[in-house]
């Protein structure tokens, strides 16, 4: 089983952080994982993404174009990557509107959510839906990856 | 028998390849005398340039590295950062230091790298046969300025001491000449002071020596020596441009 995820949003939303948490959680679960960030000029304040592969086998390439799932934290990300996501798109209401295939979309209600925690809210929804990593592992991963505010992040996961 | 004059022991017995009247012979000797007097030959690494002094590794008795054209300050930086207790100097001509190696020169100075730079300014590329240098004077005829250097199309001469003295990094900058016994004595003092600044303060020091190049200037050694005083010194005034430690030369 190999599962490929794209996480995308604006720089500053914690896109890379969410990816690192997912990757570290997979490590705690004892499976293989790779994490690859975008490093285009657009990372300087524009959109930003990272790609995670979780697998019980050796990972051939950390880079891929066709993903199993997408976590889109803004509309441009949903527009750009939703065609590449085979089975699941986790996004907010506005992001969901631009996705062509509504059946794949799982909308996370982020109204009133602290903007710094939208990444965790979406990651939590993604994990709840897929079970790709365990709840304990993701909590431990946040404590390991976050420099500060781990508990707020964990609370925001909602799992 | 009393010895009143001899070759410095920091200079090898190898016959110099320099032309009659060339300033490198004097400059080498001054550096050699200073190494002897400070007793540092065994702890010194010289970095020599591309240009007429390219074979200086055969003349200095200390350990030597031959650098690529203009890169001596970078090479010296690499050595000094590994061996902060050793004495490291670069010896460079005007094309090497002020044209192809300008960036390395300026940034080593900016870092206040603990090295000593001996800069030989003879207003011409010697080794390649007399082309225009960054220090070639306005109107000076060279192979590549056959009608005289036109500053409006070929640029104005770089005054390195003046440029570097605007910076915070260097501790000591002086320009000397090698045309008269008095000037040579002053140059010796400057070279010794430069090494002393490095040894005692770990500071960056820079000594420019105005030198003659009779062969490429198309002059006799005597005429060339006179030109240093009559044409170069008026354009490149002698003196101390920066001195922030105020250490007396030598000990």
């Amino acid at each position, binding site marked *: 089983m190999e599962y490929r995820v794209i996480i995308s949003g604006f720089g500053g939303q914690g896109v890379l952080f969410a990816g690192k948490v997912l990757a570290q959680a997979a490590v705690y679960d004892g499976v293989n994982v790779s994490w690859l960030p975008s490093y285009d000029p657009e990372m300087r304040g524009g959109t930003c993404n990272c790609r995670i592969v979780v697998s019980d086998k050796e990972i051939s390439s950390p880079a891929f174009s066709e993903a199993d799932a997408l976590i889109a934290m803004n509309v441009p990300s949903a527009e750009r990557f939703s065609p590449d996501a085979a089975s699941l798109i986790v996004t907010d209401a506005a992001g969901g509107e631009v996705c062509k295939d509504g059946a794949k979309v799982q909308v996370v209600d982020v109204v009133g959510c602290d903007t710094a925690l939208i990444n965790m809210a979406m990651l939590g929804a993604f994990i709840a839906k897929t079970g790709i990593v365990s709840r304990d592992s993701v909590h431990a991963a946040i404590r390991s990856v976050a420099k500060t505010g781990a508990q707020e992040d964990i609370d925001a996961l909602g799992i | 028998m009393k010895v009143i004059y001899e070759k410095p022991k920091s200079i090898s017995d190898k016959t110099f390849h320099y032309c009659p009247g060339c300033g490198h012979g004097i400059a080498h000797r001054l550096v050699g005398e200073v190494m002897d007097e400070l007793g540092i030959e065994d702890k010194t690494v010289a970095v020599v340039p591309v240009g007429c002094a390219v074979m200086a590794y055969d003349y200095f008795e*200390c*350990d*030597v590295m031959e650098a*690529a054209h203009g890169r001596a300050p*970078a090479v010296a930086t*690499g050595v000094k950062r590994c061996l902060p207790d050793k004495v490291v100097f670069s010896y460079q001509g005007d094309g090497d230091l002020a044209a192809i190696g300008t960036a*390395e020169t300026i940034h080593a100075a900016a870092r206040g790298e603990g090295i000593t730079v001996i800069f030989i300014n003879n207003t011409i590329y010697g080794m390649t046969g007399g082309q225009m240098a960054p220090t070639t004077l306005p109107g000076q005829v060279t192979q590549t300025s056959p009608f005289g250097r036109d500053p409006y199309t070929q640029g104005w001469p770089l005054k390195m001491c003046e440029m570097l003295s605007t910076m915070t990094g260097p501790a000591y900058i002086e320009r000397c000449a090698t045309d008269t016994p008095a000037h040579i004595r002053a140059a010796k003092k400057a070279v010794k002071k430069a090494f002393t600044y490095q040894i005692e303060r770990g500071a960056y020091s820079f000594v420019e020596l105005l030198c003659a190049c009779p062969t490429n200037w198309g002059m006799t050694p005597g005429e060339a020596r006179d030109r240093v005083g009559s044409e170069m010194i008026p354009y490149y005034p002698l003196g101390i441009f920066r001195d922030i430690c105020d250490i007396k030369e030598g000990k």
Partner: protein
Amino acid sequence: MKKLMKGNEALAAAAIYSGVKCFFGYPITPQTEIAAYMAKHLPKAGGVFLQAESEISAINMVYGAAGAGFRAMTSSSSPGISLKQEGISYIAGADLPCVIVNVMRAGPGLGGIQASQSDYFQAVKGGGHGDYRLLVFAPASVQEMADMTVTAFNLSDKWRIPAMILSDGVTGQMMELVDMDDLPEICRYDKPWAANGKGGRKKHNIINTLYLEPEELEAVDMEREKKYERAKAELQDWEEYMTDDAEIIVTAYGISARIARAAVNAARSEGIRAGLIRPKMLWPFPEDAYKRDVKAYLCVEMSRGQMVEDVRLAAGGARVEFYGRCGGMLVDETEILNRIKEIHDEGNI
């Protein structure tokens, strides 16, 4: 213990483990994490980090530090490596050991910043002027970024040949598990040739590349060539996967080899006897790996075909096909599989 690390950071950490004394760097995407890691960690380990004014200065600082007998390193990405070629030629000409890292991006010119493998010729065939070689390593994982850095320092010191880690943007940027507690052993070699101040020595040491007498220079070059010949005999290093009964062998290095391996697996599951040869060192090129009886080799690269020339030379008269992507595009598993199938089907007609 295994932990998640970026390729660039694992490489830098392994260099510190190897006892690198100095790192001289300059920012360029996608290798800058190496410099940033060194800036943060090398001084604590007793080393020197210095951000140079240019790539040219950085490599010449390496020349100075290596000439003084210390383990020295610089890293860059393709355009910056072009700038370093002058210094690399001098370092090779002075027989100095050092490690140079190229986290390749696409060229020519400013090109792009995505991963590429189009600097193979530059790394393996020279790059700078003169007859010289580099020991060239081709890591395909974060673990190998670390392991090969240690080996590069060891072999460079032993052979007095500068080493290059020829990586790429993906391998440098990606995070995966790496075991930093199980790195290769460090080997130390005396450096009596170092110009580090004479001390008690009778004769001065000279680090030099200038030989004005052609007879003398030819003799020096020939002596170095003998060393290169010995390296070719001793250092060839490659990995094989499912080659025993393979009739079509895919060959690739670095990130391309990982993707090619997945294609080989896919081909096997369709009943095609495919295998993989992955050079772990690109110079000396593992010529011996290609002396076998196969239907065809398929060389896969993220370039317009560079390593394939060495594969053709090594494979004698065997059939060698090429598949590559360039411009920063990764090779594609399905496209590789399709080429394998094409070659397989042609053979059955």
